[in-house]
């Protein structure tokens, strides 16, 4: 009955400009935490009916929440109609999450011709040194950079990263996809295309433009730190 002895010790509520932050202790048991949270929210937060809802941020410290625990937590907070959960933050992630986060930010490079019937898929960015032939396909969770001719299919931002781009020395794709957006083969350029080109999503459609435009519209591609 430690929560009786030390009331209010495991849930600390702080008010901020944006709303409330709930700091949840990470060493007590999860059930104890929920119990206390429940009690505290019902006791102290009897807000008037027609007030706008209050944003709530949750910090779980070094406690890792399983999906099930997280949804129980959300249920308790959401049951009090006054609150809207903005986000749940934790200082810890699982090894799997850490791995996939690292993979998603990694560039995989390969020197190969992706031929008809071949499919290459990477979780992060792809740097391909070689062509993608018609009938071949490359896809990436992030960006795709091709030092060669893109004549097959390229799918960037496969899991929904819509700011992903596709760049190629020669852009003659049979199909381009970024996230869920899709572009068939672009109209054959009447004049021979002179430089490298890129594809990106703007206003809900895929645009193909000269490569140089990327530094302006996708500054996040720049990972160089320091001056030059």
């Amino acid at each position, binding site marked *: 009955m430690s929560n009786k002895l030390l009331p209010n010790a495991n849930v600390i509520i702080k008010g901020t400009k944006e709303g409330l932050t709930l700091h949840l202790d990470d060493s007590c048991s999860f059930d104890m935490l929920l119990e206390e949270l429940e009690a505290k929210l019902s006791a102290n937060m009897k807000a008037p009916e027609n007030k706008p809802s209050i944003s709530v941020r949750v910090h779980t410290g070094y406690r890792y929440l399983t999906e099930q625990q997280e949804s129980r937590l959300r249920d308790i907070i959401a049951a009090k109609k006054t609150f809207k959960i903005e986000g749940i933050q934790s200082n810890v992630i699982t090894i799997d999450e850490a791995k996939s986060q690292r993979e998603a930010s990694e560039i995989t490079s390969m020197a190969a011709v992706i031929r008809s019937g071949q499919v290459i898929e990477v979780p992060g960015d792809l740097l391909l040194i*070689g*062509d993608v*032939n018609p009938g071949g396909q490359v896809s990436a969770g992030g960006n795709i950079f091709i030092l060669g001719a893109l004549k097959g299919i390229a799918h960037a931002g496969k899991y929904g990263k819509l700011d992903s781009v596709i760049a190629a020395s020669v852009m003659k794709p049979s199909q381009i996809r970024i996230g869920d957006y899709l572009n068939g083969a672009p109209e054959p350029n009447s004049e021979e295309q002179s430089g490298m080109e890129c594809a990106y999503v703007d206003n809900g459609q895929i645009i193909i433009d000269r490569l140089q435009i990327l530094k302006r519209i996708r500054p996040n591609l720049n990972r160089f730190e320091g001056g030059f």
Partner: protein
Amino acid sequence: MGEAIVITSGKGGVGKTTTSANLGTSLAILGKKVCLVDTDIGLRNLDVVMGLENRIIYDLVDVVEGRCKTHQALVKDKRFDDLLYLLPAAQTSDKNAVTPEQMHKLIGDLKQDYDYIIIDCPAGIEQGYKNAVAGADKAIVVTTPEVSAVRDADRIIGLLEKEEGMEAPKLVINRIRSHMVKNGEMLDIDDITTHLSIDLIGIVVDDDQVIKASNQGEPIALDPNNRASVAYRNIARRILGESIPLKPLDEEPKGLVAKLKKFFGVR
């Protein structure tokens, strides 16, 4: 210990059988001991093109199923003094009668006795293809200057590159027609080789004599004066390691060559 070369293409009718027959013949002319193996079970015709159809007694399936010894099934080409043999495909069984493991063993055995084993592969990428490449050390991919044939060649090259222990495949462009290339109606050699990015080992013109020779069971390579024949013999010499420059059309009369070079982008 000999070397096994599979002749393949993906797309049908581009000239695998013609190339097999003529490379086998050319290698024999150059004094090598050659065994042709037809793996196109159910649709055999290498025997017809070689003019050996009437002398078949046993076939490939008889050999792998143990109904005869390998040497009993080999048909000797009497035009050559003990240099050229054919192991015919079965006409009645279906493709699944043979497994890649059986082929591997069979080709391995033949390599003991022959300098070159030329394996004629069926069209497609299924069982027949898998059987044909199973025992091969090298591959020659045949294409014609058509988009669909090049597309299928690309697919096959992708598969061949995954075969363990197989050397990078070499390309034969068959049935080039100079006037159509000139008029831009056909892909030119540069287009094809940059697209497929593998080494070119030969270019063969489209020539009615090839068809006529095949119909008579006398491979064109037996005729020293024909343009296609020269092309096949040159491929055979390149297989033997000779370096013979690849001209756009191996046998066009001079003058015209220079003109054509422009169209082929050869400097």
